[in-house]
């Protein structure tokens, strides 16, 4: 079987920042090559990528990951039939979701204080975050309305969903027409594992290419209303941070992505076009996004200094081992970027030759003279052209039947 796989390699420098912290507030770290490195978890960067999709894709291509999907579904039901009351719509939505996913959807237990205050009723929720595509939610809303015949009759819906074929339809609705983000990052449904979707991407934890020590910023804040008699700070504290040149890596299994996106399409709909859109959105989202941890404290908005994208035919390859020996800062000018690029420029051709790693396309995006060493690793392009070129190469491979 011929495969179509992309791997994406990014070098990105971030100034003092705390992109992703642990439960003590320290930026996350890991040991590699015997020294401590800055680390940003794969979960943090996947979330940032998913948020970037809001700008890159049509909302109908995306999913909603929430405990409050019953509320989301109720919105659609009342939009179709404004005569249905909110609380009745919640009941109908909860019943439909429960049938479709096998998960319990219940009104969360009200706190005593809320009950005393006669706080308004709240929507039923699932006990964990559920991930459904907007098209799946639209489908469920239509089914619910069909079941109640546009009324607020919950018993009619229950009877309707009891029928075997309607139950199967509800089930099929959440197992087909997955959104781009579900197809890329996968889905876990704890109560119905046959509804799981296997992710088509693999995102590694970002690691600094050099040794890093976390630093601590001691700060004081002055109270504007202090009088001469009250000297001293109104508040003191510390913020932990580090700065790093990060190596980021992700792999995308395009064949699997197409399988995930193709489930439930009509016979006359090809998954190739949605696949191209998803590939382009992932490449762009992964390259340009940044986790938002403490971003207002540090203002560490940076973009990658260098990006290498490879189209592979057998399996993806991470280059992180190039940085197993920590990069030392430049003797005169400081900085880690130039040495990191030189490392990669020497490592990549050697690795590919030693293991006979063929690629079916290789693109490079780089900034400034420090990254000059990478020029030979692929066709140089700006970000927009690179994303389009990758999308076009993938489409051509898929349509030529390579997958």
């Amino acid at each position: 079987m011929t495969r179509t796989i992309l791997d994406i390699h990014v070098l990105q420098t971030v100034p003092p920042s705390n992109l992703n912290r642990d439960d003590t507030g320290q930026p996350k770290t890991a040991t590699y090559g015997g020294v401590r490195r800055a680390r940003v978890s794969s979960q943090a960067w996947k979330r940032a990528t998913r948020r970037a999709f809001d700008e890159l894709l049509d909302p109908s291509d995306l999913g909603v990951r929430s405990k409050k999907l019953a509320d989301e579904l109720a919105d659609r039901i009342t939009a179709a039939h404004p005569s249905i009351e909110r609380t009745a719509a919640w009941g109908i939505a909860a019943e439909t979701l429960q049938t479709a996913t096998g998960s319990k959807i219940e009104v969360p237990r009200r706190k005593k204080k809320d009950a005393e205050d006669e706080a308004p009723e709240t929507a039923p929720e699932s006990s964990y975050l559920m991930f459904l595509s907007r098209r799946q939610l639209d489908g469920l809303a239509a089914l619910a309305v069909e079941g109640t015949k546009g009324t607020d009759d919950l018993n009619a819906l229950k009877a309707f969903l009891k029928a075997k074929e309607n139950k199967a339809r509800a089930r099929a609705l959440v197992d087909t027409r997955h959104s781009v983000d579900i197809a890329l990052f996968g889905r876990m449904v704890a109560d119905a594992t046959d509804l799981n979707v296997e992710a088509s991407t693999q995102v590694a934890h970002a690691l600094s290419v050099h040794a890093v020590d976390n630093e601590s910023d001691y700060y004081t804040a002055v109270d504007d209303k202090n009088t001469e008699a009250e000297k001293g700070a109104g508040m003191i504290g510390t913020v932990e941070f580090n700065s790093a040149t990060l190596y980021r890596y992700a792999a995308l299994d395009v064949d699997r992505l197409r399988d995930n996106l193709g489930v439930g399409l009509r016979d006359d709909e090809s998954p190739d076009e949605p696949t191209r859109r998803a590939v382009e959105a992932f490449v762009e989202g992964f390259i340009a996004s940044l986790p938002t941890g403490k971003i207002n404290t540090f203002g560490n908005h940076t973009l990658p200094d260098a990006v290498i994208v490879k189209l592979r035919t057998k399996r993806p390859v991470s280059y992180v081992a190039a940085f197993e020996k920590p990069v030392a800062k430049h003797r005169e000018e400081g900085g880690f970027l130039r040495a990191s690029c030189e490392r990669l420029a020497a490592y990549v051709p050697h690795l590919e030759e030693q293991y006979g790693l063929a690629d079916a396309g290789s693109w490079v995006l780089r900034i400034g003279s420090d990254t000059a060493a990478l020029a030979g690793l692929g066709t140089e392009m700006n970000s927009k052209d690179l994303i389009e070129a990758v999308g076009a190469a993938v489409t051509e491979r898929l349509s030529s039947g390579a997958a």
Partner: protein
Amino acid sequence: MTSVLLLRLAGPLQAWGSAARFARRTTENAPTKSGVLGLLAAAQGRERDADLSDLAALRFGVRIDQPGTRIRDFQTAHHADSGKSMPLSERFYLADAVFVAGVEGDASFIEALHTAVQAPAFLPYLGRRSCPPVEPFDLGVRPDTHLMQAFREEPWHASEWHRARTRSRRTLDVLLDSAHGEPPHLSLRDTPVSFDPRHRRYELRGITTTSVEPNSAPLPGTPPPHDPTTALRKS
């Protein structure tokens, strides 16, 4: 006569859980049989509910070339509406570790697994999806041999800095499926019966711990070690 397929399992992070459930995801000190067989099954493109009896029947062993350190990752999720953070899970990883894992079995089956590993149907990872392996990953097939022999002949795959630190210690720990009838030194519930997410099942596995002195020949392609401080240390 049996063949052996060797894999070098190395990367910044790996995670090999054997009894990890719910919010606390631990890792063993070395790759588990279920983890490595899962990787092979995935390479072959087997679905999660596929039959695994042929894989489970392979003899499994792992050599600890560089033990690494354990790190704890505290993961949170944010509520979609309130933005409130919710503790989700505590995950443990092995950082900076290098292992050589091997499976021993019938020559043609081992060859088939090797072919699969070179062009895997599902992307390989070291116990958790966010832990991709680094090269060299697939060390190839050793024909007409058995696991212990393969481990003895395989060069030491530890990193340069680790070798420098442990110059005097040349024996490596090996964890091996116990032979039939042999009393195991320890046991772990990690022989997979089914990876079906609806009903994952594992059987107990007897493990014999031993050690080998690996082949002292340097790894191909590595420059000779140059460390001028050795002279200072000796004096």
